[in-house]
């Protein structure tokens, strides 16, 4: 074994041993409702934090932090391999909130918020709005400064896990002058504050992973602002780029590990000798391996400092299309059986074997986090150098 990989392999053994003793077993069967989902998520996060594996991406001064990207990769590979629950509930807190606080937070803000995240405080993101999705900078949620507080009014949409969250990363408009990006400000909102209403969004597969947040004269102390007034767009970029490519590597590895579900389906339906079915399965398996390979390659390039603008979009688009193909084959092979409604597993991951639910859930990756169409624009314009569309198109101009 070469010297460079030896410490990583020793970490791998250490994590694997720890998971064998500590990973929850049969957790999917228990996750039939939100209460059980929250219990599973909270319990597993606390356990991981105690084991020192919950926040490997944090700076070294925090317990469990200071891991290199290569070490983080090993930890996530092992978590995927052991089929542990993905950390859905704490994801925004440990990545988006923490990374933004590390980059933009004052010493006082970090000292206040970071330890609480490690103790399980849950954050959500308040960026999107009914009329600001892919075009985020068009957001209109208004904050007005009155002495030591901002008074906020407006509506936020698609806040992942918002209904279970304690705090919210809130992007608001403090000015309508100049470029639309220049009038934004970044606030840390306590969701228990007066005037906040959070409602879950019922998705087409029956889960409620997202929420909408209504803000009615909500007061946010000026001390809870990140960066300066008008600097919100720059702060938000830190939030959006906080995740370092590990998620898609982990998700691709989990997808590869879930192929047995298709194999099960082929056997259960007695189609082991059906050449068409075998061909489709072989084709899918090859595409899955390609998705794993490009996610691995991306991370390796990042570790080596060789990432190009647009590479992340290639990985996300590959994953989202492959996941759709995976769940689509499940629905097809599942036949009428897949059409009978089965209760979903809350937080069960992208591949649960409840095929219609998995298929519908796969839209989470073709739409959320920058839709496939946004990724295609990024690939075409930034990676391939095709010209951007001129700005300033309006309905009036078209007439």
């Amino acid at each position, binding site marked *: 074994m070469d010297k460079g990989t030896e410490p990583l392999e020793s970490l791998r053994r250490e994590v694997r041993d720890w998971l064998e003793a500590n990973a929850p077993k049969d957790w999917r069967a228990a996750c039939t409702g939100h209460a059980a989902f929250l219990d599973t998520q909270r319990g597993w996060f606390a356990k991981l934090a105690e084991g020192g594996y919950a926040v490997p991406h944090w700076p070294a001064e925090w317990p469990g932090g200071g891991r290199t990207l290569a070490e983080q990769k090993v930890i996530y590979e092992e978590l995927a391999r052991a089929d542990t629950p993905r950390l859905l509930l704490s994801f925004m807190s440990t990545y988006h909130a923490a990374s933004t606080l590390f980059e933009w937070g004052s010493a006082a803000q970090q000292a206040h918020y970071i330890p609480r995240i490690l103790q399980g405080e849950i954050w959500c993101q308040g960026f999107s709005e009914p009329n600001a999705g892919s075009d985020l900078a068009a957001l209109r949620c208004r904050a007005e400064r009155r002495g030591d507080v901002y008074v906020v009014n407006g509506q936020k949409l698609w806040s992942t896990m918002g209904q279970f969250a304690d705090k919210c990363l809130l992007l608001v408009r403090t000015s309508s002058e100049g470029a639309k990006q220049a009038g934004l400000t970044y606030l840390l909102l306590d969701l228990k504050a007066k005037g906040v209403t959070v409602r879950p969004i019922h998705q087409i597969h029956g889960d409620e992973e997202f929420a909408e947040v209504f803000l009615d004269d909500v007061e946010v102390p000026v001390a809870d602002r990140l960066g300066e007034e008008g600097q919100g767009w720059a702060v938000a970029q830190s939030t959006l780029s906080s995740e370092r490519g590990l998620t898609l590597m982990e998700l691709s590895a989990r997808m590869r590990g879930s*192929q*047995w579900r298709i*194999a*099960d389906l*082929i*056997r259960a339906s007695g189609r*082991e000798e059906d*050449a068409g*079915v*075998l*061909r*489709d*399965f*072989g*084709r899918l*398996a*090859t*595409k899955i*391996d*390609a*998705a*794993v*390979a*490009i996610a*691995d*390659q991306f991370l390796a390039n990042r570790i080596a400092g060789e990432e190009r603008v647009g590479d992340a979009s*290639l990985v996300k*688009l*590959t994953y989202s*299309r492959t996941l759709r193909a995976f769940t689509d084959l499940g629905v097809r092979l599942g036949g009428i059986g897949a059409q009978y409604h089965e209760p979903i597993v809350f937080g069960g991951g992208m591949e649960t074997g409840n095929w219609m639910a998995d298929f519908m859930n796969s839209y989470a990756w073709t739409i959320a986090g920058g839709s496939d*169409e946004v*990724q*295609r*624009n990024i*690939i*075409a*314009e930034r*990676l*391939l*150098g*095709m*010209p951007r*569309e001129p700005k300033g198109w309006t309905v009036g101009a078209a007439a």
Partner: protein
Amino acid sequence: MTLTRTELEEAARKAFEGALAEDRWSMIADMGLLMAAVPDARGGLGLGGEAVGAIHVELGRALVSGPAIAQMMAIEALAGSDAPAELLDRAMAGDVMTASLAADGTLTCVPDADRASHMLVAEPGRVALVPLDGATITPRETWDRTRRLFDVAPSDDRIVLAEGSAADALAERIERLMLLALAGDSLGGADAILTLTIDYLKTRRQFDRPLALFQALKHRVADMKTQLAAADALFRARAAGQASLVEIGALKAHATTVYRAIAEEAVQLHGGIGLTMEHHCHLFLKRATLNAALGGDADRREAAAGREKLARAFA
């Protein structure tokens, strides 16, 4: 020799730059590309599957004609047996020794047989080199003019390289190399025609703007790029790793499918000029479809991959 894979890749790319569909046989031999996979001890460069793959990516990028894939198969067989060193040395130096790329046991789809001294023949339980002196060699005109294929009816002379289980193992290595080479050739060609297409869209103007400004076209190009990038990552992973023969077959199927899709789109995105003989779009489209047909079709390769996955799931 201390040539690395990257050096080889860059040298090959430079060597073929600017050429399209030309025969660069003496250059290929002089650069040592044919001996890349041959162990040091037998006079080769001792490079692994990744390097061999990279060479074929570059050959495919420039649509280089000639029997490089078949020649490397013959060399792999010679290096993997105790055939006389003289034969191996001749083959590495560029004396043409060819092989069938048909993958169905027939002696068809043999590149450049008319200028070959020998041909590799892999039969069940026996791998042999056949002198082509007394052979009947029939040219088969293909749509793809970047390759010259022949049917061969050889004489009964055989220089036996391996027999029994050793022959089967050697035949597997040869097949593996063929599939990897066809996959690499396809990804190189796909990358070249995609780059040409993007350049064309940036230059060609209609409705007072470059075609590259139209989102409908941008999105198609982005999809082409994404398919290619993922296939390329898979290619590198499988060429370097411990993939089974069936997985290499599925890789070849995937790479040729992606090549075909990109070459098809390229003709469409070039519009009228893409339909003409003077433009090079058609060269890529034809090589893509030929690559898809050589080495066994995608449907069977993919079905085999599905069968292997299924067996492993219940192992």
